[in-house]
C-alpha cells in the first residue's frame, strides 16, 4: 500500500492510495457535504453533493468514489461548487414532495440540514408534485416514496450489512423507486428480517417507524458502522 501526497483546499495531505478523496478529506478534518454516503457501506456516487474540483480536470468529480492520486490539487469549496450543490438540492426538493414542517424527520433530516448549510433559501424549479403512495403494510416500519431521494442507502445496508436483499430499485428516471422483494408490499416481503437497518440508514423521512409523529424520527447511524467494524475486527462489544 503506497501513500499518496495531495493538496486539499491548500492543505498538504498524505493518504493511502486505496482511499477516496472523501476519506482523505475527512481524515484531514475537511468536511465535504454528502448525502448518499453512509459510513459502513460502499459508495455509489448517486447524489452528487460531494462533487469537488481537481486541478487539470475540467469536470467535477464525486469525492466519495474518486480515489486519491499523487499530486492531486483539490478544491472542496468554491463559488462553482456551491452553485452546483444548491442546484442539486433544489432539484431533489422539486422532484418529490418534501414538506419539512409536518415530516417525521423534521429537525433530524440530512436533506433539510444540507439545504440549510448550503444556503438553499428557495427552489427555482417547478415542483413536480408527483403522486407517490405510502407503503404502511409492514408491521413495524413505513415507506413514504414522497420523501425518498433514491440515495439507495437502504438498499446497500439491506444487501451488504444485513444480507437480506429485500430492498432494490425499480424503474428509471422520474419513475425510479425503492421496491421490496419482487415489487410487492413491504409487509408481504418474505426476505425482510425486520432488522430496521434501512430505517436507521435513511437520510430523510422516507423510511420511518410506524406511528411516528412530526420530528420524532431520530436515528443513530453510527450503529451501522459499528456493526461492520465489529464484524471485520471481531469486536463484539461497543465502547
Amino acid at each position, binding site marked *: 500500500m503506497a501513500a499518496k501526497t495531495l493538496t486539499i483546499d491548500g492543505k498538504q495531505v498524505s493518504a493511502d492510495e486505496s482511499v477516496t478523496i472523501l476519506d482523505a478529506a475527512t481524515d484531514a478534518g475537511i468536511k465535504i457535504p454528502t448525502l448518499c454516503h453512509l459510513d459502513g457501506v460502499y459508495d455509489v456516487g448517486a447524489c452528487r453533493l460531494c462533487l469537488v474540483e481537481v486541478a487539470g480536470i475540467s469536470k467535477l468529480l464525486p469525492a466519495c468514489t474518486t480515489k486519491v492520486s499523487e499530486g492531486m490539487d483539490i478544491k472542496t469549496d468554491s463559488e462553482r461548487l456551491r452553485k452546483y450543490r444548491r442546484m442539486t438540492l433544489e432539484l431533489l426538493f422539486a422532484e418529490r414532495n418534501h414538506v419539512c414542517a409536518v415530516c417525521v424527520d423534521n429537525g433530524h433530516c440530512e436533506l433539510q440540514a444540507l439545504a440549510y448549510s448550503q444556503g438553499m433559501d428557495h427552489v427555482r424549479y417547478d415542483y413536480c408534485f408527483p403522486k407517490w403512495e405510502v407503503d*404502511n403494510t409492514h408491521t413495524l416500519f413505513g415507506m413514504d416514496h414522497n420523501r425518498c431521494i433514491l440515495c439507495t442507502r437502504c438498499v446497500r445496508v439491506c444487501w451488504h450489512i444485513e444480507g437480506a436483499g429485500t430492498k432494490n430499485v425499480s424503474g428509471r428516471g422520474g419513475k425510479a423507486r425503492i421496491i421490496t422483494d419482487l415489487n410487492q408490499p413491504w*409487509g408481504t416481503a418474505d426476505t425482510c428480517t425486520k432488522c430496521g437497518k434501512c430505517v436507521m440508514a435513511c437520510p430523510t423521512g422516507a423510511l420511518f417507524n*410506524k*406511528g411516528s409523529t*412530526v420530528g420524532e424520527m431520530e436515528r443513530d447511524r453510527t450503529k451501522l458502522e459499528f456493526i461492520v467494524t465489529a464484524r471485520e475486527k471481531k469486536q463484539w462489544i461497543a465502547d
Partner: protein
Amino acid sequence: MAQRIIIDPVTRIEGHAKISIFMDDAGNVSDAEFHVVEFRGFEKFCEGRPYSEMPGITPRICGICPVSHLLAAAKAGDAIMAVSIPPAADKLRRLMNLGQLIQSHALSFFHLSAPDFLLGWDTPQAKRNVFGLIASNADLARAGIRLRQFGQEVIQVLGGQKIHPAWAVPGGVRSALTEEGRARIRAWLPEAYATTKTAFDLWKKVLDSHKKEVEIFGNFPSLFMGLVEPDGTWEHHGGKLRFTDSSGSIIADQLDPQKYYEYIGESVQTSSYLKSPYYSPLGFPDGMYRVGPLARLNVAEQMGTPKADVEFKKFKKLGRGRSAVTSSFLYHYARLIEILTSIERVEAYMDDAELLSEDLRADAGINSLRGVGVSEAPRGTLFHDYTVDRDGLLRKVNLIVATGQNNLAMNQTVAQIARHYVRGNTIPEPMLNRVEHGIRCYDPCLSCSTHAIGQMPLHVQLIAPDGTVLHEVARG
C-alpha cells in the same frame, strides 16, 4: 327596486369573506349570505397519509387555533387505536386546550372586537383597530396582549412552541409538565386574573351602553350545541354533546360525539366554500344551531369553578329566567367567562402532581377503521373524523369546524343588522361597520372552516332580485 348588497371583503376576522345582502321589491332586506370565497382542500390532500401524521398536518390549517386541531386529531387517533389514554395525558391535553381558549379569546376580545365597542362604531376604520386601542388606552391594550401571551406560554411550556406544537399524539402526549414549566405558568396567574377583572369591569360598561346592539346583533332563536359533563357542567375537551333550544330546554343530551353523523347533517351551498351543518332531526335549515362560547354557556348548568360561576349566574340572567341567552353580541361576555374559568382550571392543575407523570402514551395498532376526535375549540365544537385502511392510511377525512356550524347564524345576524340600517338602494356607512362586527361576534376563523387561506379585507354588494348589483363597497 329590489337589490342585493355585497360586503367584500370582511375585515378583522381570521380569513377572507364577502357578504351579500338581498333586497326585495319593496326595498327591504330579505336575506343575507356570508360567503367564504377561498378553498384549501385539507380533507382531500390528507387522504393517503398515515393517521399518526394528522396531529402534525391539521394544525397547519390555522395559526390561531392550531392546538384545537392538534387535540382533535390526536383524539381521532386514540379512537382508531381504540385506546384509553393515560390519565396524565388527558389532563395535560386539557391544560393545553385551556391555554388555547385563553389566548384565542384574548385575541378576539382585545385585538379584534374591543376596538369597535371601545372606540365607537363610527370611528374611522384607520383608527378602529388594535393600534387605535393602544393610542387611546395603552394599559388595556398591553394587558390584553399579555393575557394572550399567558395562554401562549401554557402552550409553549407543554408543547415546546407557541404555534403548531407537535405534542399531542395518537395515544397521548409526548412530554409531561416540568417543575420549571409549572413555575413559569404559576408566575403568570395573578396578572391573568387582574386583566380578566379589568375586562369584566369594562364589559359591564359596554353592556350598559350597548343595549341596542344586544337587541339586534344576532338576537334570534336557534339551537345551541356544546360539550357538557354528565352533570351538565361546562366541558371543553371530554364529556358528551348537548343541544338546547332558545327557551333553554334541553332537546338532546349526552349524545356520543363519536356518532355526530347520526344527528348532524352538512348542507352544501353553491355560494360559499363553507358548509352549513344542522341538527338533522329538525332538518335544514330549521336545525340551525350555534356553537362557541355563547352556546357552551347556554347548554351548561354551571362552569364548575367558583369565580366563573359568579359571572355565569349574571350571564344566565340575561336570558331572563329559563330562556337561553340568544344575542350573539353576548358571545363577548361568554368569551370572558370562559377565559376566567380557564385560568381557574389552569391554577387547579398547578397543584396536580399527576401532570409530572411519565406514563403519557398508549401504544396500539389499528383497531378501528374509523375514529372521531371531538374537542371544544375557542370558536366551538371541532370534529375530526378519519376513516383509515388496515394499514392506517387515511381513506376519508371529514372536518367539521366551529365557523361552519355558525354559518347559518352568521347569515341571520347580517340580515338582522342590515334590516335595521339599510334604507333604499345604498349601503350606509354605519351599517357596514355594524355588519362587520356582527360577524366578528362569532370570531369566525375562515382558514379553519374552509381549511382556506387569505387576507382580511371587506366587500359588500347590494343586489336586486334580478341579480343586478345596485351598490358595492370594498375596502381592504
